[in-house]
């Protein structure tokens, strides 16, 4: 069964460093998403991506964040200068269509900023 994969499973970084979280969405999906879950809090939407551009982003997704689909398979989230409060579980998701189409989630990358 096709699935969304994410690497690494755990990333530890120093405050101020850049990190890139990687995702491989399901191959025939066209819509891609990043969500995050700070420990003990709810899952929050960060950004959605379609046709090589951002279609929607939340207030959390400021200038420190960027997304890219560098090739036909990967979808990345870059945090330019990490802050302590960026420590969270980051989930990638993909879907065939927008709206109510099922979003398939990856297992997440746990980011720890020291």
């Amino acid at each position, binding site marked *: 069964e096709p699935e*969304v994969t994410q690497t690494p499973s755990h990333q530890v970084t120093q405050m101020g460093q850049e990190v890139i979280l990687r995702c491989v969405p399901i191959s025939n999906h066209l*819509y891609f*998403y990043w*969500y995050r879950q700070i420990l003990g*809090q*709810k*899952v*929050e*939407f960060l950004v*959605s991506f*379609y046709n090589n551009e951002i*279609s*929607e982003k*939340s207030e959390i997704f400021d200038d420190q964040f960027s997304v890219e689909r560098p090739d036909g398979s990967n979808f990345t989230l870059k945090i330019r200068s990490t802050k302590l409060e960026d420590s969270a579980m980051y*989930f990638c*998701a993909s*879907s065939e269509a*927008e*709206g*109510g189409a*099922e*979003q*398939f*989630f*990856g*297992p*997440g990358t746990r980011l720890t900023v020291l």
Partner: protein
Amino acid sequence: AQSVTQPDIHITVSEGASLELRCNYSYGATPYLFWYVQSPGQGLQLLLKYFSGDTLVQGIKGFEAEFKRSQSSFNLRKPSVHWSDAAEYFCAVVPLMNTGFQKLVFGTGTRLLVSP
């Protein structure tokens, strides 16, 4: 304010007993409604979803949910809980807006514990 509320943070149920997890939403128009489950160390898995039509929706793993427009609720149920159902359950919606039909808005989650 627009929101998704799961009033129960933790619920403990005996194995074999029935389960109901509550979810209420506050949106002007009925959004698309979802229930996801997250097992430890796993991603989020879709249990079921509701867009329109029959208000009782069947999902995977024996779960069902009932949409009640008058109560703005979408409660998740299971007649007989198994120990493997212990996990975190999230209610989520896709708000219907003029633009941006895509983002999932999650509730805070309910952690289900199953006792022997």
